[in-house]
């Protein structure tokens, strides 16, 4: 059997849905970029307001650099919330569907009656999730790069925008991978979504509260949001903790999930 048949089929089936996600995320990127000049003009008021907020709230908003600098603005309005959350919803849904969702809807068994190994179905579908997430990130990042000049964001370098794009992609892929792996290992769609979305939320809270509550500050090393946002790749570029750390977690998680799926009873 030639490789890639399952991946190609997955991409083909998701064409139309993906088009809508692309349009949505493109619109978010354009609106966010286009709003910057207005925010900058209103700048002083905003910064005074932000300074009056507790430090933790500011950090949770991703606004540690203030919200009127290009990096601070994009972090607080895009990279620390809207963008990863949209990617997470897409990634966790697609990751869950790959094995556990297909198993629940009943389409996995007929597929596996064909001469195709289980690990290959899992690997190709995870590759599909990765590819689609990468394309969504790429669309938004490319738009931000193109819109830097018209909307006064040009002090951001292409390299830093690329690093932020890869960072947010890996953040979303990490939780998508968790949902995928838990679903592959257990066949439970509910458990897969709960793990992916639950851990994404929990680690977000840990990161957000880490500058307010000492207890969480001691835990923040474990939050992928902390890896990605502190310091932000928009100002610091390619850092190990934004790029390397998520990979160190997601690769073994995916491998273990696939290994268990390969031999377990289907449900």
């Amino acid at each position, binding site marked *: *059997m030639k490789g890639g048949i399952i991946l190609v*089929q997955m991409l083909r089936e998701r064409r139309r849905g993906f088009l809508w996600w692309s349009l949505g995320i493109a619109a978010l990127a354009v609106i966010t970029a286009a709003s910057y000049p207005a925010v900058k003009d209103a700048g002083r008021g905003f910064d005074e307001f932000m300074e009056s907020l507790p430090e933790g709230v500011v950090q949770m908003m991703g606004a540690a650099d203030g919200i009127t600098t290009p990096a601070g603005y994009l972090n607080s309005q895009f990279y620390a919330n809207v963008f990863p959350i949209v990617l997470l919803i897409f990634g966790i849904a697609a990751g869950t569907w790959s094995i556990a969702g297909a198993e629940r809807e*009943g389409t996995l*068994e007929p*597929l596996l*009656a064909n*001469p195709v190994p289980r690990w290959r179905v899992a690997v190709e579908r995870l590759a599909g999730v990765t590819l689609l997430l990468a394309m969504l990130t790429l669309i938004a990042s490319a738009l931000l790069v193109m819109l830097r000049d018209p909307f006064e964001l040009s002090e951001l370098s292409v390299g830093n925008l690329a690093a932020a794009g890869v960072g947010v992609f890996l953040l979303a892929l990490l939780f998508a991978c968790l949902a995928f792996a838990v679903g592959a290992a257990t066949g439970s769609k509910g458990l897969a979504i709960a793990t992916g979305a639950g851990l994404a939320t929990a680690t977000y809270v840990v990161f957000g509260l880490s500058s307010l509550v000492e207890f969480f500050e001691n835990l923040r090393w474990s939050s992928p949001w902390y890896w990605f946002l502190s310091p932000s790749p928009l100002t610091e570029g390619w850092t190990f903790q934004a790029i390397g750390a998520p990979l160190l977690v997601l690769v073994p998680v995916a491998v273990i999930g696939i290994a268990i799926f390969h031999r*377990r009873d*289907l449900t």
Partner: protein
Amino acid sequence: MNHDASLIDVRGLTKRFGTLTAVKDLDLRVGPGEVYGLLGPNGAGKTTTIRALLGFINPTEGSVGLLGGHARDLAIRRRVGYVGGDVTLDRNLRAENLLTWYADLRGGLPWKNIEQLCERLGLDPSRKIGQLSTGNRRKVAIVQAFMHDPDVLVLDEPTAGLDPLLQRDVLDLVRSRRSAGAGVLYSSHTLPEVEDIADRIGILRRGVLVREDTIASLRDVARQRLELRFAHDIPPGLLDGVEGISDVVVDGRVARVVVDGSVAALVDRVAGHQVERIVSHDDDLEDVFFHYYQHDEDGDAT
């Protein structure tokens, strides 16, 4: 039968889910050119046996042999066709997309073959699977199971939801694979569905194979519930002492009888008495093989 030649070779299969034993110490063999009817009420373990055979679940004990190997081996799965119990195929795909996708996974098959099968079953492959009726969806499953001329067919109640004409078409397909030397495991919960086609039949109850025999000997002992409607009131005593009849209820022009084995004696007796209709109620396997089930019915009636 020579065991080495078995296409399907299940030995001592036991499958437990937690505390539930779905299949217990099952032995089952199907040779080339043989159709094996696996009968049993719902929940008897037919689907569990089949899912173990296809490698979807692992046996707790025993082995499930297929074509001299195991379904995990891709070379073996390439030669197997499978129709699952509750057919769910990707609803958003057109039937033709699903069929060509599956054909590609099998290394590519000529579209002409697939098209011929669709035509034979009266399936329009350009429709979306989600928009098809239950019967038509089942046809898609049947086409994908037969399109590569498999050497082993594993069919889990393949004609549930199909009308009798289509049932006949499917049975014809099974017959032509049998003539080509394929072994077929055909599960069903009714005897009439498989009695025209099965060479041997196994009856599964609560995970145990309670009887295995040829269709001819099973027919001798199978029960039939018949309802005879006469044109006039039934003469008293007409149905007394007929060979094979074990229970008679007469109600005006209608007689309800239970016959063990052949109905020949009954038909002889009522000939000339203007029987207008004979209705059979032997769809329920529990009734048909009542006496096999009866002895272990005590205390845990279903």
